[in-house]
């Protein structure tokens, strides 16, 4: 069954490259990495680079919003404040009613940083101080930031958090699509918010997946990921106009391993082909693929095999993780919006930090940003547990 295009009416994103869409686009066009040496004051040092959102610490959520304060909610608040996004959502509320707009937010750790820091303070306590860590359920729960965003935007429709590791905020598009098609809502806000936390920094390090320098996707000497933080939101409305539309979503499971991709990228092939079939497009009609491209040895190799299986070796591809870092639960929305911007501007971002392409990789990697004429583009997101999601975007006809 061919799916009907779903217009992207508004979008905003904030990450290490900048606050708001224009800042991020300029950073990608200039071609410099936004990664920096690890400098988080609340952690003991780690020998890696990170994609840190500048001045997030000084962001204050207005007390009138009565929102629990957390790094994740600050990031969400900062991002929602850009690109007139809240104004566009208000217009959608006026068109459909607040109870007819769904909300789908991806994250992997929500506000866990505050729980981690509270635990650390509690473990190091003196016997006279509190016998329990200062924990907050409305900060800690996986749904905490989604609740905050829902109240801040004044939405009363169906809402859920999607937490499928690093495909989380790609899969929000698939859920939103289904809820709209099934008549559970008329329009949807999708997004992803994931902020730096000890669990993810230490966890990926424990798996030997973290690079000691800025990550180098598809490079011969790539040695792992650089973890970043990001937020992004998009408004999807089948009844409104937008220059770019979501054409289809493809999803699959590897059924292979909890933390390693299938070596031939079999699950990724399934997801990409499902997206192509649902959109009624052949591989040659896709002008650009924004890779998951984490710069881990195994991911880039498996994804390259999947790409060359589906598209051959001519379709231009690039990874933008060298600019933003791997923003985990926010990677899907970040790269979906970058892919949409690329289409709207008829331009392909490059793969920063890739100095010498690994000769074992056969895909047509774009290293430096360039102009190109194209009508459809794909964004890939994969994650632990063998979860795969490919989104296809196209110019609205």
């Amino acid at each position, binding site marked *: 069954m061919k799916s009907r295009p779903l217009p992207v009416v508004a979008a905003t994103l904030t990450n290490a490259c900048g606050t708001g869409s224009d800042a991020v686009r300029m950073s990608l066009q200039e071609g410099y990495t936004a990664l920096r040496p690890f400098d988080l004051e609340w*952690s*003991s040092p*780690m020998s890696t680079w990170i994609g840190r959102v500048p001045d997030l610490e000084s962001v204050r959520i207005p007390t009138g919003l009565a929102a629990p304060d957390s790094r994740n909610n600050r990031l969400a608040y900062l991002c929602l404040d850009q690109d007139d996004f809240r104004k566009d959502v208000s217009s959608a509320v006026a068109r459909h009613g607040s*109870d007819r707009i769904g909300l789908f937010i991806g994250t992997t750790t929500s506000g866990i940083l505050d*729980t*981690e820091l509270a*635990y*650390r303070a*509690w*473990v*190091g306590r003196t016997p006279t101080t509190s*016998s*329990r*860590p200062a*924990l*907050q359920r409305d900060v*800690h*729960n*996986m*749904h*905490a930031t*989604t*609740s905050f965003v*829902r109240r801040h935007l004044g939405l009363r429709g*169906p*809402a*859920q*958090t*999607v*937490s*499928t*590791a690093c495909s989380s905020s790609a899969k929000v598009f*698939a*859920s939103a699509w*289904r*809820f709209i*098609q099934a008549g*559970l809502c008329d329009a949807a806000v999708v997004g992803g918010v994931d902020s730096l936390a*000890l*669990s993810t920094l*230490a*966890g*990926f*390090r*424990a*798996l030997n997946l973290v690079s000691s320098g800025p990550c180098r996707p598809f490079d011969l000497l790539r040695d792992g990921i650089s973890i970043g933080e990001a937020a992004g939101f998009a408004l999807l409305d089948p009844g409104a106009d937008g220059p770019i539309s979501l054409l289809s979503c493809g*999803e*699959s*499971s*590897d*059924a292979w391993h*909890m*933390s390693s991709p299938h070596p031939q990228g079999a*699950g990724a092939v*399934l997801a990409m082909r499902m997206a192509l079939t649902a959109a009624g497009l052949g591989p040659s009609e896709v002008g650009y693929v924004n890779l998951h491209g984490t710069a881990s040895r195994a991911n880039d190799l498996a994804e390259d095999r999947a790409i060359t299986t589906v598209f051959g070796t001519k379709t231009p591809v690039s990874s933008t993780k060298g600019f933003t870092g791997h923003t985990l639960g926010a990677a899907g929305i970040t790269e979906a919006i970058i892919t949409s911007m690329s289409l709207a501007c008829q331009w392909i971002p490059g793969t920063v930090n890739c100095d010498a392409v690994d000769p074992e990789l056969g895909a047509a990697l774009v290293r430096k940003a360039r102009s190109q004429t194209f009508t459809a583009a794909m964004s890939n997101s994969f*994650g*632990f*547990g*063998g*979860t795969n999601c490919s989104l296809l975007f196209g110019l609205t006809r």
Partner: protein
Amino acid sequence: MRSIGARSIGICASGLPDWSRASRVLTDVDAFQPDSSFYRAASGLPLTESRRINETSRLACLAAHDALVSLPESAIATMPAIFTSSDGDGAVLSQMLRSLAQRDVSVSPTAFHNSVYNAPAGYYSIATRSTAPSTTVCADESSFAAAMLEGYAQARLTAGPVLVVAVDVPFPEPIQALGLSDAAFACAIVLDGASGDTKPACIARWAIVDCNASMRSTDPLSKAFGNNAAAAALPLLRALARGEPACISLPYLDSTWLELEVIP
């Protein structure tokens, strides 16, 4: 909203170790007796995964297996799955928080990959060798209703069967102080969007309504599962076990409910 078939059910909880025994308890044939023997090994996993599996994943796999036991393998391999948990895995999170609180900020690699919210979905796909899509959703205490809505949408659009699995497990102190889950409960339900297939029951209405305290569904067994958000499924499971028409309200977001009508 259209009605959707409820094809089969699975469960894994104290005193409710599988659906055939649980349905006798839920129809008052047998009395409820707490029993920890529901904690058993999940089937179908390779040795490495069965050694590493965490509690939420194990219970979710057991409940899913119970719901799928009568279905052909070919149907399972193509069936989309939806997982939900309000709080995630208590033992894994507690272990991670304790090690992150140490000076060297280190964690065990297995604890880390088991800490991802979609770990149950990952283990399930490995156990069943299913490459079908799965998703994992959370809506705090409204998680079961959220997963049912996602199940409704998927069943309608695929016009076929969809697996919904809900799991929550007890949290150790001191993080339990957040009011997190204090009992283990997992259940699974196969929804079916195929027209005409309404055995043994179908679920209709699917309306999100404002809170009205007089309509709230409670279950005599709810107390036995404390703060477990997955156990919000009990009134629905009881209605399905009894095979009698029933109206069920599941707690949903911000003082709303998801209203369902069970039609045998």
